[in-house]
């Protein structure tokens, strides 16, 4: 009964989504207030039915209802409850339903809290969101129905892929989807503006928080995925330039560009057309990411869907939304009035540079990911585009971004003084040089480029702090005034500082990990000791154990540093009984920001066990940096002027009060 309720709720949601697409947009065209007003209730009802449907799917998973194909294929009665729940979206059908759930929640939020939006804009936004809902619900109902029954029902399920039986599955996909699908809101706003042929500062005020929220979720989602791969896959890497990772990185680059260009639009009324284009790009790349992962067109670690009919369907969705929105853009964008001129050296100019470099980075990832496919389709040649390509191209593009980052926020709007900004950054630059010098001396004989990397990371972090210090009037006013000024700064200023510092922190982690990691590959028997990165590990014992749905052999190591006992670390080889599939559980000990990472392999022919041990200095900064970035986004989101929302139409006539950022 529950699967049928879920299925039926999905069909009803589709009907509502069709109405939600047609009626409000029609109302906006015809100027019919009544038709426009049905949008929000429809969007809320749509959300309600999607929530019901999703809840039904979770329920059949929790009950282990093996009359449902999806549950049979991805669950097992012995699986711990948490993984029964998360297993709901640990498969193609369920993850698509999660996608639609997030879409419905965002749509419902716009409908609920959009009361101060101009009615035509709101009607068009809700309509566009409805159309996305229609496309994805049709996709689910026609090609990926999670509620299909199976007769006769088997007694037991085939269990979830063991790699996915991890807390990471509870966090990573929902966060990632909050990011991907969050860009559907900015996309809907962009299309609504194009349909209407009108765009103003109020539009930007509405779009910026959504873009920020989506970006912050995506940032943490990507970082979480990276950490998950790091500890679960067992070979200590944290970024593989896997197509699936690339799929999430592309919208991140476009989204990062978007949150910056939206600032220019909001504050200076410039870059309107470009902001619209970025909003379209960010969501298009999110869709493309979904397509790459879901269609199985690229085989990679994450791809668990391989049915070509699905691929063709998603391709149709892609063509309709990306092609349609770009065509609409080409047709309607010339109608949008341009505002705000600025000199090349200005805050706006810096943000344009940021946008160009970020867009080119997104292009690098896109081209590198799709090129092998295109080449094979074109002349049958098979080549690989691997990490070396991405490291070189994205690295070359991100280096100037990092170097220019401290300059941007210090430049004045309209016309900036680059020499003056350079002088104000002297202290940061000098300190960064000192840091690089100290590192160069301390690690003599190590990688030559590492000190430069550390210097750059330090410059980015200190540059972000300089911005804040300058605004507070460091060295020019008394400490009391400075404190008062710091307190008076808008939260968005702190947000910028945190987000930029987060990049520097992340960079610090990347440079340290890639330059100074130590690795040890060895065969060890119980009692054997070996050194790695200043530690001494001793294999104490091999311990067979039994878990709820697996058996494993844990290798317990004692850790000593400089003769001091530092406890133990254990890594295990796990066999999941239902699929007879092995996984490696890495053992990780964190010391400050650095980590000791141990993972065991197979039993060796001569007795003993294969061991890979690493010491990764400052490795956690890679993910902490991303968390700091997202915190910056969240802080910016809580800024008063975004909390209050868009100005009411009547207030728009007054000159907008210039925030402190314009000083």
């Amino acid at each position, binding site marked *: 009964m529950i699967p049928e309720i879920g299925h039926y709720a999905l069909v009803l949601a589709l009907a509502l989504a069709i109405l939600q697409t047609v009626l409000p947009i029609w109302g906006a065209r015809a100027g019919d207030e009544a038709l426009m007003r049905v949008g929000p209730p429809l969007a809320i009802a749509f959300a309600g039915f999607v929530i019901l449907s999703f809840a039904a799917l979770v329920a059949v998973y929790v009950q282990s209802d093996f009359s449902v194909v999806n549950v049979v294929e991805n669950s097992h009665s012995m699986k711990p409850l948490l993984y029964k729940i998360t297993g709901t979206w640990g498969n193609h059908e369920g993850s698509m339903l999660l996608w639609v759930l997030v879409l419905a929640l965002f749509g419902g939020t716009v409908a609920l809290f959009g009361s101060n939006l101009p009615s035509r804009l709101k009607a068009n936004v809700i309509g566009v969101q409805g159309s996305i809902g229609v496309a994805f619900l049709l996709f689910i109902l026609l090609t990926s129905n999670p509620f299909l029954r199976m007769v006769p029902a088997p007694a037991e399920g085939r269990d979830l892929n063991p790699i996915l039986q991890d807390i990471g599955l509870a966090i990573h996909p929902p966060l990632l989807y909050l990011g991907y699908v969050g860009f559907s809101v900015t996309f809907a706003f962009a299309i609504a503006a194009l349909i209407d042929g009108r765009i103003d500062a109020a539009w930007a005020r509405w779009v910026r928080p959504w873009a920020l929220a989506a970006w912050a979720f995506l940032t943490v989602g990507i970082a979480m995925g990276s950490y998950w791969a790091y500890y679960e896959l067992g070979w200590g890497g944290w970024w593989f330039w896997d197509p699936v990772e690339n799929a999430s990185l592309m919208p991140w680059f476009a989204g990062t560009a978007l949150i910056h260009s939206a600032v220019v639009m909001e504050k200076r009324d410039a870059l309107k057309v470009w902001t619209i284009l970025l909003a379209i790009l960010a969501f298009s790349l999110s869709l493309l990411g979904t397509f790459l992962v879901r269609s199985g067109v690229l085989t990679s670690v994450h791809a668990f869907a391989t049915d070509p009919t699905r691929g063709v369907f998603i391709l149709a969705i892609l063509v309709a939304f990306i092609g349609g929105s770009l065509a609409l853009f080409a047709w309607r964008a010339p109608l949008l009035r341009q505002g705000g001129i600025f000199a*090349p050296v200005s805050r706006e100019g810096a943000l344009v540079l940021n946008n160009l470099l970020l867009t080119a980075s997104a292009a690098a990832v896109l081209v590198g990911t799709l*090129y092998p496919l295109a080449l094979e389709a074109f002349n049958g040649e098979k*080549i690989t585009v*691997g*990490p*070396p390509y991405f490291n070189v191209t994205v690295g070359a593009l991100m280096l100037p971004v990092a170097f220019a980052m401290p300059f941007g926020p210090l430049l004045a709007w309209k016309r900036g003084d680059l020499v003056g900004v350079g002088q104000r950054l002297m202290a940061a630059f000098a300190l960064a040089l000192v840091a690089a010098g100290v590192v160069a001396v301390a690690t003599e004989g190590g990688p030559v480029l590492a000190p430069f990397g550390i210097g750059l990371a330090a410059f980015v972090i200190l540059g972000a702090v300089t911005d804040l210090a300058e605004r507070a009037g460091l060295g020019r006013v008394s400490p009391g005034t400075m404190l008062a000024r710091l307190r008076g700064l808008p939260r968005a200023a702190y947000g910028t500082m945190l987000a930029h510092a987060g990049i520097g922190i992340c960079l610090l982690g990347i440079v340290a990990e890639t330059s100074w990691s130590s690795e040890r590959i060895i065969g060890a028997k119980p009692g054997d000791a070996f050194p790695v990165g200043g530690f001494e590990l001793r294999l104490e014992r091999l311990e067979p154990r039994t878990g709820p749905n697996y058996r494993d052999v844990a290798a317990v190591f004692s850790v000593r540093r400089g003769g001091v006992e530092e406890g133990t670390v254990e890594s295990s080889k796990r066999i999941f009984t239902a699929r007879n599939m092995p996984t490696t559980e890495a053992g990780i000990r964190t010391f400050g920001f650095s980590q000791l990472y141990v993972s065991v392999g*197979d039993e060796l022919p001569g007795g003993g066990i294969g061991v890979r041990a690493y010491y990764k200095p400052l490795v956690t900064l890679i993910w902490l940096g991303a968390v700091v970035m997202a915190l910056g986004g969240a802080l910016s989101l809580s800024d008063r002027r975004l909390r209050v929302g868009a100005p009411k139409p009547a207030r728009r006539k007054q000159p907008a009060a210039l925030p402190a950022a314009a000083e």
Partner: protein
Amino acid sequence: MRAPAARLLAGLLLAAALAAPAHAVQPDEVLADPKMEARARDLSRELRCMVCQNQSIDDSDAPLARDLRIIVRERLKAGDSDQQVLDFLVARYGEFVLMRPTWHGANVLLWLAPFGVLLAGIAGVLLYARRRGAGPDRQAPLTPDEERRLGRLIDEAGGKAPADLTKL
């Protein structure tokens, strides 16, 4: 894909999937000479495990990756340079084995594309700025009449420009 090839590939994939995940680099593969071992590791990262999904032979558990790692080490021990090792494997398995796309043919486009996008963007911005600079909506200089009105406003404000005027 033709049927035999497809079957072969399926067989290889199956073999890769069924093989117990040995560790990527096994202790018994490690060369005694640390310098040569470091070279072997660097080369391993540049080589793809062809039956895996986007893994280098350095990361992969598959038996094929192990074979390739051993071949790399054997070639190095035989005195090959890094480039010779790569050439040897390309001759055997085709360019598919290289993680770093080569710099010839259509691949040049691949390498240049991101920078092409950047240059196109810069060109677009410059073109746009020039068009706007010369366009009708460039801010016209104040007419004599406007100058006089502005002067009057400034006088009325006591010789100082009104605060919001400076910020406009």
